[in-house]
């Protein structure tokens, strides 16, 4: 059993300027990577310097969701094991110049990562960036421990499903005393909630009891954006993109409004979608 408590930062060490936030969930497939990509893109669009760290060693995905897979030359283990410099490994986003990606190793295993070295890497990144967003792998084993070690804030992504809520609850327990632990409810289907066929945001948060950062609807646009490798947060016309931008605003503290719970599209919107909406 590994020690799950965050290591206390020695009082003598000056606090790094950037914020390290891990995006986690316990359960796989709830949208951690998509959430990381979109929050990162939304934060960077406001001018903040952001680095996205893919901590899912062995199952690299953040690069492809970001549409940056062709630019990756080195990965996080190259840096940790001194085969590449940090600057060589950081990939600059093709749309937002203040956004960087540090890809995961695809051919290695999660146990290959040295927890202490990972912690130091995150601290180094915090010296250089306003935000270090860490995309955590599913599970609560070594990969999870390595992903959370340097982060003093966490975003728990949860879908309105019993399995996801149970796993999120476990992960919140394992995260221990972080500065902040937020909740993003992902893949909400408002029509199902209205019919009583899906847990509502309130149902989920009655159990997790975390500050709600935002709610993302289950809509085709998310899938389309992943297909293209273009984060929705950069699409000004998309309501889900707006939801991601609002999340970024709440993280930065510039948006103090309560999160909007997505509602069913109106008849007109459905009609518009029928005659060829933007989602392709």
């Amino acid at each position, binding site marked *: *059993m590994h020690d*799950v408590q965050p290591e206390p930062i020695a009082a003598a060490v000056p606090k790094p300027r950037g914020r390290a936030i891990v995006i986690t969930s316990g359960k796989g497939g709830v949208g951690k990577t998509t959430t990381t990509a979109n929050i990162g893109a939304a934060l960077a669009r406001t001018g903040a310097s952001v680095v996205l760290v893919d901590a899912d060693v062995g199952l690299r995905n953040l690069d492809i969701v970001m549409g940056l897979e062709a630019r990756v030359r080195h990965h996080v283990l190259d840096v940790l094991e001194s085969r590449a410099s940090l600057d060589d490994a950081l990939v600059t986003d093709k749309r937002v110049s203040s956004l960087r990606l540090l890809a995961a190793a695809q051919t290695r295993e999660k146990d290959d990562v040295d927890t202490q070295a990972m912690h130091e890497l995150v601290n180094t990144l915090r010296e250089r960036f306003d935000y270090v967003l860490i995309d955590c792998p599913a599970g609560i084993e070594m990969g999870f421990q390595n992903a959370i070690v340097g982060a003093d804030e966490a975003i728990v992504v949860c879908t309105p*499903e*019993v399995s996801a*809520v*149970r796993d999120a*609850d*476990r992960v*919140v*327990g*394992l995260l*221990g005393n972080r500065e902040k632990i937020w909740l993003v409810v992902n893949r909400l289907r408002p029509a199902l*909630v209205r*019919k*009583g*066929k*899906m*847990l*509502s945001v309130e*149902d989920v948060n*009655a*159990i*997790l*009891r975390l500050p709600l950062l935002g709610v993302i609807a289950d809509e085709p646009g998310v899938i389309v954006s992943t297909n293209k490798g273009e984060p929705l947060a950069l699409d000004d016309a998309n309501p889900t993109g707006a939801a991601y931008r609002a999340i970024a605003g709440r993280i930065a503290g510039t948006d103090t409004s309560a999160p909007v719970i997505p509602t069913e599209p109106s008849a007109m919107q459905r009609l518009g979608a029928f005659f060829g909406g933007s989602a392709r």
Partner: protein
Amino acid sequence: MIDFFKKIFKPEGSSTTARERLRLVLLSDHLSLAPDVVESLKLDLIAVISKYVEVDEAACDVSFERQDSAIAMLANIPILAMKTRPPSPPPTPSAPPPAPEPPPSFGTPATAKVAEESPAADQPVPSKPPSAPRRKRRRRRAPVAPALGNAAPAPG
């Protein structure tokens, strides 16, 4: 039959089922993740019951069982004998109460020892448990109130 009418007149979505299942599974998760809490509960339970009866502490067991719509606590506390009244001092089978400190004595150690023993001899002999104690097995079932919240890491 009642369920049938419930379904006819008040159609409930499966989210109600999801909520209820989550409530129970999380309660169960939290109990299994907090062995220290369960242990402390067990010790308190034994302490309370020991005020009235002699219990076999070594054989005590507290567990939780999932039932249809609740988690039940099952406490198996073997009773060795009734307590003699009044219940003081509490004679627990495993740890007898420590004898009071003898007052500072000016006599020889031997004298002090005699003085210590004599009041004990005056006390009524506690009813001894039969050689083969009939164990009363008492099952206490108490529904555990729903506790929500986040699962703490299991220590260790």
